[in-house]
């Protein structure tokens, strides 16, 4: 019982918040949105602090339910990255949610979704993996629909649920064939039973597409742009950071542990997907005019880089990917935070609308610039170190073709990120975004992101720490 409480503490903490929200929803009709949001944010902060303190105490890992649920320091750290992410999203969504009718439900959906992700990261077999994946997906579709008076938002939700259903079907098909050929669904038993038969490879590819869909790897990415554009910005940022992050975490675990027999196979699959994903993602991002769509495509390109890191198949691969996700949380949420503030206060979302932003909103401009620099990987922002370690992990396999293509893609991405920066600083605009005064929580979120972008890269002990726990968990 004691084990149960300590090992599952992250999940239990969120579940507790979920129930508190339910009670609040039933009990307090009169509470204003602002105080509700404050209450929720405080709970999320406490949640994060508890998480960090348990990392501090270095609890040993363990398994529950005969190996269905696994946890260790690395997994706990990953969960706390997600906790941090939802806190930032919740803070920066303040302006959008303060007048929303269904505020509590939004957070209930969000937290249910994150609980799903937590179980997914901790899953020890295919069954719990599949179930938690679904738990992490279905509330998301509802969240996509949260701009309820906008048709585009409903459309996004529809597309999300339809595409997810399709992908889940294929994933399930893969799992069942995997079970058919090996007779097990446990990740730990799987490696001994894999034999390289064509049917098994087929099953593996289908499983891969399930991950690839969630990560928006080309050509499984087509839903991304529409859904990202249609969904409210908070949900879009959740999709592009939290959702992707959680999938990357479990993806690494399954590849490195359950499928290490197929290391050659998935190395090549990752190589191919990384090249296609980076390149096409970049070329699509080049011509986007809508800020959200732009970030959507650029995040596709970022995934290509993550795949390179994962393909390194060493503890360096794990470390670099987890480290990158941590940085990505700050950089992308910083960018989305600014887009969110501008979108919810003025309704403007096009890149052209950002022309001359520096004249009216220098603070937002600097935050967005910093985030974009970090996304583009320009030193000394953290994004540079993140990309660098991904590339180094990838280079450890000695594949310079891959690294060269990646480096070229970095240049292309630099071009379009700078294009936005230029628009904000240099271009004249007769009708610029007016001076915006964001709420305190939203500004706090932006400042947290900015600090993160600067600090995570420069303090090397963060990387060392991840490296240590990644080795331990390996």
């Amino acid at each position, binding site marked *: 019982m004691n084990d149960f409480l300590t090992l599952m503490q992250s999940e239990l903490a969120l579940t507790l918040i979920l129930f508190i929200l339910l009670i609040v929803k039933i009990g307090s009709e009169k509470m204003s949105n602002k105080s509700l949001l404050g209450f929720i944010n405080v709970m999320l902060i406490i949640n994060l602090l508890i998480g960090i303190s348990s990392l501090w105490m270095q609890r040993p890992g363990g398994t529950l339910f005969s190996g269905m649920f696994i946890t260790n320091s690395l997994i706990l750290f990953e969960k706390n990255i997600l906790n941090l992410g939802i806190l930032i999203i919740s803070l920066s969504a303040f302006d959008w949610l303060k007048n929303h009718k269904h505020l509590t439900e939004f957070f209930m959906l969000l937290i249910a979704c994150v609980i799903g992700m937590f179980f997914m990261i901790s899953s020890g077999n295919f069954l719990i993996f599949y179930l938690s994946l679904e738990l992490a997906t279905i509330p998301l579709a509802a969240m996509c629909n949260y701009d309820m008076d906008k048709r585009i938002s409903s459309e996004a939700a529809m597309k999300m649920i339809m595409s997810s259903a399709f992908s889940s079907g294929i994933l399930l098909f893969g799992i069942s064939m995997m079970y058919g050929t090996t007779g097990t669904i446990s990740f730990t038993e799987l490696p001994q039973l894999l034999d390289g038969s064509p049917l098994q490879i087929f099953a593996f590819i289908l499983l891969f597409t399930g991950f690839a869909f969630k990560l928006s790897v080309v050509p499984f990415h087509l839903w991304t742009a529409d859904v990202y554009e*249609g969904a409210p910005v908070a949900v879009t940022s959740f999709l592009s950071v939290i959702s992707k992050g959680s999938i990357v975490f479990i993806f690494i675990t399954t590849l490195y542990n359950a499928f290490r027999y197929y290391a050659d196979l998935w190395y090549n699959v990752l190589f191919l997907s990384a090249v296609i994903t980076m390149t096409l993602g970049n070329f699509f991002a080049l011509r986007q005019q809508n800020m959200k769509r732009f970030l959507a495509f650029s995040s596709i390109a970022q995934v290509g880089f993550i795949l390179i890191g994962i393909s390194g198949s060493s503890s360096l691969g794990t470390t670099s990917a987890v480290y990158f996700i941590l940085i990505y949380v700050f950089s992308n949420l910083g960018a989305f935070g600014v887009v969110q503030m501008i979108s919810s206060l003025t309704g403007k979302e096009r890149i052209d609308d950002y022309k001359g932003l520096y004249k009216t909103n220098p603070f937002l401009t600097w935050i967005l610039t910093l985030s974009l620099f970090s996304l583009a990987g320009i030193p000394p922002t953290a994004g540079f170190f993140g990309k660098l370690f991904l590339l180094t992990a990838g280079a450890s396999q000695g594949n310079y073709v891959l690294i060269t293509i990646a480096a070229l893609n*970095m240049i292309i991405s630099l071009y379009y990120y700078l294009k936005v920066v230029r628009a904000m600083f*240099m271009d004249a605009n007769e009708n610029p975004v007016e001076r915006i005064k964001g709420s305190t929580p939203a500004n706090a979120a932006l400042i947290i992101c900015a600090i993160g972008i600067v600090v995570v890269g420069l303090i090397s002990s963060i990387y060392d720490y991840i490296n240590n726990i990644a080795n331990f968990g390996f």
Partner: protein
Amino acid sequence: MLDATYIALIPLLPLASFVILGLFGRKYFKNFSGIIGTTSLFVSALLSLVTAYQYFFVSGKLDGVYQKIIALKYTWLQFSPNVSIDMGILLDPISVMMLVVVTFVSLMVHIYSLGYMKGEERFPTFYAFLALFTFSMLGLVVSSNIFQIYIFWELVGVSSYLLIGYYYDRPSAVAASKKAFIVTRFADLGFLIGILILSFYAGTLDFNTLIERLTNFESSQLKEIATASFLGISALTWGLVLVFIGGAGKSAMFPLHIWLPDAMEGPTPVSALIHAATMVVAGVYLVARLFPVFALSCPAALEVVAYVGVLSALLAALIACTQTDIKRVLAYSTMSQIGYMMFALGVSGYYGEDGTGYMASMFHLFTHAFFKALLFLGAGAVIHFVHTNEMTEMGGLRKYLPITHITFLIACLAIAGVPPFAGFFSKEEILVAAQHHNQLIYWIALITAGLTAFYMFRLYFSIFWNKEHHPHGEHHGEGPATMMIPLIILGIGAALAGFVPFNKLVTATGSILETEFHLNATTIMAVSVGLAGILIAMRLYKTQNDLPERISSSLKGLYRASYRKFYIDEIYLFVTKKIIFNLIGRPAAWIDRNIVDGFMNLLGSSSQTISEEISVMQSGRVQQYAAYFFAGAMGLALLFIYIWTK
């Protein structure tokens, strides 16, 4: 041993002033920010001099050889048990020399800007950027680790981007800063890959270890990197050439030089700092830093350095002869002189007298810093006075700007290689080295020397002699003392820097290089070519006449080609617009239109009506997505089942 703590202060002081001015400058130190920045740099410069004294004359030598001393080392990131990224301070003759050059020139620019930039609205910001740049440059020169140098390299790029684009309300400045950033980024890509290759094979990022392993013919690392090959060229050559490409980008070597002339859009003191003495020589410094590897293990890569250098020197000198914007003339002249330093490295050997080229290159880097910074600052004073960059609108300024005139003349004599000014000694050594090594390079270098003298004196006479100046309106004098003092100090430097005994201080091996100076044919040739250039310029430009017109019309094709900078910008435009855009951009756009967007236009584009969007939803795009999904899955499955089972 040297005490490390004060050496660390040299780069940290500018960093501190950047932080203070960047955060609080505009609010609290509106008027004092210049003083704060200058003071901190003054202390840095003093400390650099102390360091140089300590190193060269007290504790740097062991058995007559200058040592490479790691004064400070902090392991920033332990990558794997053997590879770590360190932040450290490496002291050796070139890094100590660079410390002095960078802090000194930067100090001059700081003082000069007190007058030149006075009254600018973003005055504190300007000083913050200057401090950031100086910090990055100092961090670069003391790097003990190839990775540290890369980080500071990029930081230098960022801060120069900020400085070039300082007048951000001018579209041309913005375009120039962007061009500089992107071109150098392209080169940095080569640098990064080069670093990865070298460090992958050498198994270390530390400079000393890396050089030691890659120059020792017994080491397994060298054997491995020399035998591994790609496209028939060894990995070592690839690595070094790629690193050199990085250096060529920052140092504006052909064909990556196109950003430099445009970068003149920045404020003039910035040009003096970045484009004369510091950032543009970073590439030379990088090659010099890895010089033992180049010279001992891979002469082929050194040949590339030599030819790129001499070609850039000649081409830039030709272009400089026809430019009329005075800052552009200086920009091309910088490129030409850096080409000199590069090919001097390229023709150099390592041991004994073969190492003359290396010593000469560093020597020229040192003297060039003085006279080129002086030229830029002098040009700044001229522009300050006449409010134009066009030399055709100047003339007869010697009466109005006496101090500028004299110092500018000293600088011109120095760059033209007239004895006993600084440039004479260093250029002389370079020519000697080239003559010993490669006749072709020597002759090109000699022609370039003549051209250099010609275009510099064309500039000088056009500004200060030629037609009479008719000042319109109020004549506001030469400029405040803060602008004149740096000119005078640099003038003294440009006159005397040649007497520094470089062969005793800065050599490839660290021990004394015995070169005795004697008057021979090489010296006479070099000086007479320089004088010939000066005389021709005098005949053409000292007084107003139509000779230049006649000559330029008789040499129409060549002159035009030179004036249009040999159409290099046009070629770039052609390649980017026609080839990249049509062959890559268009197909990408096509795929995007036809595959991603399917049968309809972009969702969310404002021209779209809602009804169309409904019809789109009903047209079954999600099915189409699913179809692609399915096709992708099947494609992967077929591909990999085929490969795997084969």
